[in-house]
């Protein structure tokens, strides 16, 4: 069975400093991995996805994530935080076992950005 663990429920950074949101996954087969962002009172928007191509994936708004099979991790990073990055971030896994039909969401990490 597939699962994801987001290691931090809250991460606080100052504007202009790097962001690291951690995610570990468990999957029986080659997984697809995603990061979604949810701004307050909004739906979820895809930031980036890994689908067995390049292990370093670049997304929107300067975010990127690296797929590390040996560590079963897919951490999300950004070199310099912006106030508009404050939101809830979800790491998500799906795999061939479910025909990529069932996405399993992590519990989310709230990113707080202070001036």
């Amino acid at each position: 069975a597939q699962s994801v663990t987001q290691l931090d429920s809250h991460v606080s950074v100052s504007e202009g400093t790097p962001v690291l949101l951690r995610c570990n996954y468990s999957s029986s087969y080659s997984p697809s991995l995603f990061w979604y962002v949810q701004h307050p009172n909004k739906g979820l928007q895809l930031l980036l996805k890994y689908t067995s191509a390049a292990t370093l994936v670049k997304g929107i708004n300067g975010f990127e994530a690296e797929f590390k099979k040996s560590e079963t991790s897919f951490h999300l990073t950004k070199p310099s935080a912006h106030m508009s990055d404050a939101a809830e971030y979800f790491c998500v896994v799906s795999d061939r076992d479910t025909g990529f039909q069932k996405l399993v969401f992590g519990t989310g990490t709230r990113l707080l950005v202070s001036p």
Partner: protein
Amino acid sequence: DTAVSQTPKYLVTQMGNDKSIKCEQNLGHDTMYWYKQDSKKFLKIMFSYNNKELIINETVPNRFSPKSPDKAHLNLHINSLELGDSAVYFCASSQRGQGATGELFFGEGSRLTVL
């Protein structure tokens, strides 16, 4: 030109009532979903339809009944509402089939409050 739209955005009702939430997607996708997000932001899949056929039915009370009149629409009807049904319900869509990666496109959510 909203890709996935759901109505209503807010719904406040009394316990015991019956209510419906509607969802429409104009992306040409063949698969649609309902997710429930609780007060702790945890997202859990409830149902998935592929070409009007139910393919995922998680452990959900049978008071919840999805209906898909065509592949662009997926509605959710809830009978005898209970306090615990208060949540944000998200509709999403994706394209299944060869090359599918599981990427979901979400609506903005429908916040249901049961008093």
